[in-house]
């Protein structure tokens, strides 16, 4: 059962979670630009990446606050938020570590394989977290809401992947690494939540 409705906090955690997500995206873009200009790169980027990853903590707290205020923060949702936060930070750190190790250790053979696989490990737990949520959520409407959002994310990945794949095949678009599927899916998940929240607001209007 969802916890009692709470008043939305007015402090930093009361900000819209999308603002924190944008701040995180902006920080990562700034780091990428710093690397492009040669100001950062390799181990020098790691502290900045770690600090950027910390922005995911207030983002998760802000999301939980809004869910509580909307009467939608069930114990399963709380666990889902915590697990997603852990694996999101883990993904950013694993990715940063793998990139640095590749640039500085000049790995070969099995070590190169291990480093290449490292950023994918948190992704396994992302999928596990979503599966656990669907199993653990006792509130059927919240479960329906989350699975619908996940399907919208999947639809976005399939559409974007197919479109871009054909653009690549016909030589009119540059190659994009396949690991982009997860960020695109996450954007779709957020988009799905926003679409359903909007539909709920419309249904509530007199």
């Amino acid at each position, binding site marked *: 059962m969802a916890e009692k409705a709470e008043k939305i906090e007015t402090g930093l955690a009361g900000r819209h979670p999308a603002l924190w997500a944008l701040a995180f995206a902006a920080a990562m873009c700034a780091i990428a630009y710093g690397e492009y200009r040669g100001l950062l790169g390799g181990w020098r980027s790691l502290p900045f990446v770690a600090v950027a990853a910390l922005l995911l903590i207030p983002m998760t707290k802000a999301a939980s606050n809004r869910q509580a205020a909307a009467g939608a923060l*069930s114990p399963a949702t709380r666990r889902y938020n915590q697990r997603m936060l852990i694996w999101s930070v883990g993904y950013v750190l694993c990715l940063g570590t793998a990139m640095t190790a590749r640039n500085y250790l000049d790995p070969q053979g099995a070590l190169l394989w291990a480093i290449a696989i490292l950023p994918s490990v948190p992704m396994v737990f992302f999928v596990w977290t979503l599966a656990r949520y669907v199993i653990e959520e006792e*509130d059927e409407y919240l479960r329906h809401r989350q699975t619908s959002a996940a399907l919208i994310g999947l639809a976005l990945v399939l559409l974007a992947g197919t479109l871009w794949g054909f653009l690549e095949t016909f030589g009119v678009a540059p190659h994009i690494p396949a690991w982009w599927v997860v960020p695109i899916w996450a954007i779709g998940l957020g988009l799905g939540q926003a679409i359903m929240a909007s539909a709920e607001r419309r*249904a509530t209007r007199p």
Partner: protein
Amino acid sequence: MKNRLKVLRAERDWSQQDLAERLEVSRQSVNAIETGKYDPSLPLAFRIADLFGMRIEEIFLRD
């Protein structure tokens, strides 16, 4: 599907949160059912009917 949940709740002077606690679901679920945005499963519909001491078809109406 239309339903009389809002009226039944108002007759008992219950808030959405009160009803959610009695049904052991989220307030958002109650809101989604009341507004016709979501049709509950049969087990939940039976729980709602039991809570109000009515039959399911007295609460949920055909469109």
